[in-house]
Every structure is written in structure tokens, then in C-alpha cells.
């Protein structure tokens, strides 16, 4: 059986990639994908812990299912915003959508 640490390391790597993507990427769609990456890292953590630490019950797995559902809703909303942004500004660059300030 694969040890728990391996899953955690993989999850950590995925999460860090996600954070990097959110901070470094300028394209709104790529930023969204990076957010998905972070969420998947978290889901992986949930499932791994559920299987290793609490094998009798499905609490962590159910959480993972919830995260997937919420992530789907969030992506739907966020893509709608990106489409509106592109329609209005002809760009998906997040740096240029900086008018919501004082």
C-alpha cells in the first residue's frame, strides 16, 4: 500500500502549483484553472486522510464530493464573469480589469 505521506506530498505539490498559477498567470481562464488545481489538492487531502485515518466512515469522501460540486458551481459563475469581461473589454487579462478601485 502506498504510504499516506506520498499522497500528502503530491497534494502539496498540486496546491503550490495552483498558488503559483493564481499569482503568476495573467489570463483569467488560466487563473481559474489554477484555482481548480488548488481545490483538487484539497480534495485529494480529504480522501487520503479519510481512507487512512478513518477507514470505517465516509466523512472525508463526502467532503470531497461537496468540494467538487461547489467548484463546479464556482467555475460556472466565474466563467460567466470572464465572458462578460471579454465581451466588454475584448481581453481576458486580469491586470487590465483594474477599474474597481477608489
Amino acid at each position, binding site marked *: 500500500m502506498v504510504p499516506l505521506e506520498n499522497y500528502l506530498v503530491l497534494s502539496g505539490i498540486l496546491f503550490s502549483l495552483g498558488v503559483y498559477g493564481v*499569482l503568476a498567470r495573467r489570463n483569467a481562464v488560466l*487563473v481559474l484553472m489554477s484555482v481548480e488545481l488548488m481545490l483538487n489538492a484539497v480534495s485529494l487531502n480529504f480522501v487520503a486522510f479519510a481512507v487512512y485515518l478513518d477507514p470505517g466512515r465516509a466523512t472525508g469522501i463526502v467532503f470531497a464530493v461537496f468540494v467538487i460540486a461547489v467548484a463546479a458551481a464556482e467555475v460556472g459563475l466565474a466563467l460567466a464573469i470572464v465572458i462578460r469581461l471579454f465581451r466588454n473589454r475584448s481581453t481576458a487579462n*486580469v491586470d487590465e480589469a483594474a477599474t*474597481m478601485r477608489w
Partner: protein
Amino acid sequence: MAEHAWMLAAVPAFAFVALTATGRHLPRQGDFVAVLTAAAVFALFFAVLASFLGLGDAAWPVLNSIEWTAIGSFELRMGIAVDQITIVMLAVITTVAFMVNVFSVGYMKGEPRYWWYFAVLQLFVASMLMLVLADNLLLLYIAWEVVGLSSFLLIGHYWERRSAVEAAKKAFVTTRVGDVGLLIGIILLWDATGTFNILDIFHAVEAGAVGETRLFVTMMFILLGAMGKSAQVPFHVWLPDAMEGPTPVSALIHAATMVVAGVYLVARLLPLFESAGGALMVITIVGLVTALFSGAVAFAQTDIKKVLAYSTVSQLGFMFVALGAGLVSAGMFHLFTHAFFKALLFLGAGSVIIGTHHHQEMGQLGGLWRKMPVTAATFLIGSLALAGLFPLAGFWSKDEILHAVDAHRGALVFLLISVASIMTAFYTMRLFVRTFLGKPQDEAIASHTRETGAIMTLPLVFLAILSVIAGLAVFHEVGDALGFPGGFGEFVYLHHPEVFHVDWGLAGFSTALFVLGAFAAGWLYRGGRLDRATALAEWQPRLYELLRRKFYFDELYQALIDRVVLGFSYVVSWFDRFAVNDTGVDGSAAMTGYAGFLLKHLQTGRVPNYALAIAAGVVALTLITLAVGG
């Protein structure tokens, strides 16, 4: 029936609601409702009285109460207690209220807000009856305040007149100063005994639940309330001004019933005052000062109603003196007789005012005897009863007070109260002589003067009869024949019933006092002429001015309010403006605004900046958790 005496108060309360709602639209603006209500209450009183006497003294006081509310282990009961003092008060209130309601139909004819006047009159009667029926101090206090409210409304009935508004306000505020004392006293008593019920408080105090010093302080607070309502010096200033109200109101509220609420309260709680060290002596002193002071002021007043007002204050002082001597019977007896002849005098004054088309300055009247014979005759009876002529009502009650003071308070108080009696006779006869005898001072007024109609003279006659015979209630035989356990002293008493015996020496002395005062007035104002009185006033102009200006009490209070109250208000207003408003309220708003001005620069609008801040925040929180929770 006695246990359902609450109906006495319920009937006029209902009439108040009915008249307020519909009075304006009823025929005759609903005055017949008021008169019928008063008649019904008067009749109900006799049912209560018969039932009360039928139960016998073993069943006294008759109690009836319901649970009002319960908070934890504290249970508040509201109810009535009918004892001998209550019966006397009920007799006074129902009789005078009936007469005043009838008289008002004539007096208030054509006046503005006729229906509202009668509605508030019913409210007053209801609350006054509730006040004397209450078995606990809380209910008493509520009724006490409603009585004050209706007094305020009636004094200010002619609110188009600025002086009436001022007088109403003055009465309300002045009595409120005393009422705060009463409320504090009630709370202190509750705190010490855990109950509002008057009988329970008596038992608790008897068992020693309250220390003597504490009881003394408590009773002084309660005395403040009694002094405010009963217009004792230094709270007397509102009563003469209250004469701005319609005259029947002065008769009912400011002579016969409301102003004796303070006397009633002291009589009701006399066992507590007795246990409270020197409290009785304080009551005596207050009463004595009031009796002498206002008797003297009445000398120099020229308005009929003002003379009567100061006379009332003075007689209330007599009652306080009697209670201060520890004798409930003497105080309550004077209250009882005084109610009838003073109501008679005020209604007589009202009759004069209507008969002369609204003139009440003695300097413009005179010689009304021929024009208004019924009013003059009844007024004379009332005056003689007040002055204490044998054998009218005032003679017997004043005799009782002299007797009480002689037995319990020593020579000095006796001497002073005798002086006050002479004053009473003097100003009363001065009032009568100047108003009704001699030649008219103003022919124009005199030529228009007519006797008033039967609706006004009949109450006068009825009250005149009572003013003659009410004093006889003191005799054992009279009380016995009426079904009481005997005379007044055997019916109303604190410790021991006392059979009345005529003390001819004292009676002679009292008559001598009357003769002295009456003849002084008769000599000074013989035939309604003023030359001797004017000479007297010019001989001592300072003294005359002092009396005429009522010892400068109003000026003193005005100065106090201007300097102390307004000065303090100025400081408070400054604190409110600068500390609370400018610094507190506006200050916090300005600070929030400035913080926003500084922090808005963090709002760049760039998504990556926010994302970086979030990431940095998560890292920081994680590090802190590791460092602290580690």
C-alpha cells in the same frame, strides 16, 4: 357589597371612556351622563356603607384582591381594602362629586369643551376613589398620579389663556417634586418589607423589619409626597394658582378631595409615622407653619378664590397638626367637615362669578346680599362653619383639633393653633363682609348681577345643610342612631375608640377665638368700607406688601429656578453639546471617515494584488498557528 366597592371607581372610569369617545356627539354634549354617573356613585356609596356597617367591626377592614402578577417568588396582588378611614373618604368624595357635577351643568353652560370637562371630571372621581380604596401602595401611587393628571387637565381647561397653562404646569411640576419623594418612600418600604400591601407593611414594621432611622427617612420621603399633594409649605405655591381652573373644579379637587389626599395618606400610614421616631413632630411643625403662614397671606388677598385657596391651605395645615398629634379621628373629622363647607364656599364663589358675569375681585363686588340672597345665605353658613361658630360643622372639628393638640402637643402648639383659628375667623368674615355686605363697589357690575338658577343654588343649599349638621357626627348618640358604632371618634381611630364629651371650657375658648377674629373683621370692614383697612395697610406698608406678595415665595422659586436650575441645565447642555455630541457622536463619525481616507489606497482594483494578499495572509496565519499553538 363592601367587598365590591371597586365598582365605585369602575362606574366613573367607564363614564370617562364613554364620554371621551362619544360625548361630543351626544345631545347636551353628554352632561346628563356625568350627572347620572355621579348620582349612581353617590347611591352606590350608600349600598357600600350599609353593607360595611352590616358586616360589623369584626370584619373590618373588608378586603378583596386578585393576583396581578407573579415574578419568581414575588407575588403582586392588587385589590381594595375598605376600613373606617376609607368610608369617610368615600362619603366626602361621592357627596361633593355629585354636587359639583350638578353645579357644573349650570356653571359650565356654553363654555368651550363642555363634554371634555365632564369626561375629565369622571376620570378624576374614578382615580380619587381608587386612591382611597387601594389596599397597596403601588395601586395608591398609580391612582395618585392619575389624580394629578386630571387635576392638571382641569386647571388647564381654558388652555387658550396663558395663565391657565402656566398654572396647570406649575401644579403638575410642584406636586411631582413631592411625588418623587413618595415613590422613593414606597420603594424603600418595599425594599425593607418585601411587600406593597399596606396591612402587611404594618405587620412587618411592627415585627421590627425596618430600623428606626431608616423608617424615619422613609417616612420623610412619603411625607414629601403628602406635602406636595396637600399643598403644605413649601409646596403650597401651586394651589392658589390652580384657581385658574373652572370654579367647580376648585371646589371638588382643590378644596374637598384631591388636596386632602396627602392628609389621607398620612392618616392611612399613621402607625408607621408613629413608629418612626420624631416623624409626628415634623408633621405637626409642617402643619403649624402652613396654617399660620397661609392664614396670614389670606388677609391681604383680594380675589375671592385666592382667599378661599389660602384658607384651604391653612385648613390642611390644621389637619396635619391634628395628625401630628397622633389623632386620626381629629384629622379625619376636620377633613370630613371641611370638605362640605369649603366645597360650599367654592361653589358659592362660582355662583358669584356667574351671577356677576365673571367678576371675582372683592374690590369690584360688595353688596351682593340683596341681589343674590340664596348664594349669600349659603355662603354665610359656609363662612360661619369655616370660622367655627357653635354649633356648625367647623366648630366641632376645630374643637377636636384643639383638644388633640392640648392633650398631646403642649402649650406652645396650642397657642399657635389658636392664633391660626383667629386668623381663620378673620379672613373668612372679611371675605363675606367685603363680598356680600355694604354698598356695591361697581354699579355697572351690580346692575347686571342676578341670582343664579336652581341647578346651581340647589347644590349650595344641600351643602349648606351638610355644613350645619355634619359636625354632629361627633356625638355618640347621632352615630348610634345612624347605625355606626357611635360618634366619629369611636368609628375612626388608631388605637382606642373615644366617646366624645363636650368640654365646655374648650368650647367657650374656641367660641372666644371665633368672636375675636370675626369681630376684628367686622370692625375693620364694617359695612364693606375699606378706610380702616387702608389705614392699617398704610401704617405698616412693608408688612402689607409682604402678605400681599405671599411672603415672596413665587419670586424666591423663580430666582431659584433661574439661577440654580437653569445654571445647572446650562452646564449639562454644554456637556451634551461638546462632550457627547461633538466628541462622541460626530467624533466617531469623523474618525471612521479619516480611516477610510487613509485605507482606501489599499484598494488597487488589481486581482493579483488581492490574491497575493490572501496567499500571504494564509502563510502568515499558518506560521502564527505553528508558533503559538506549537
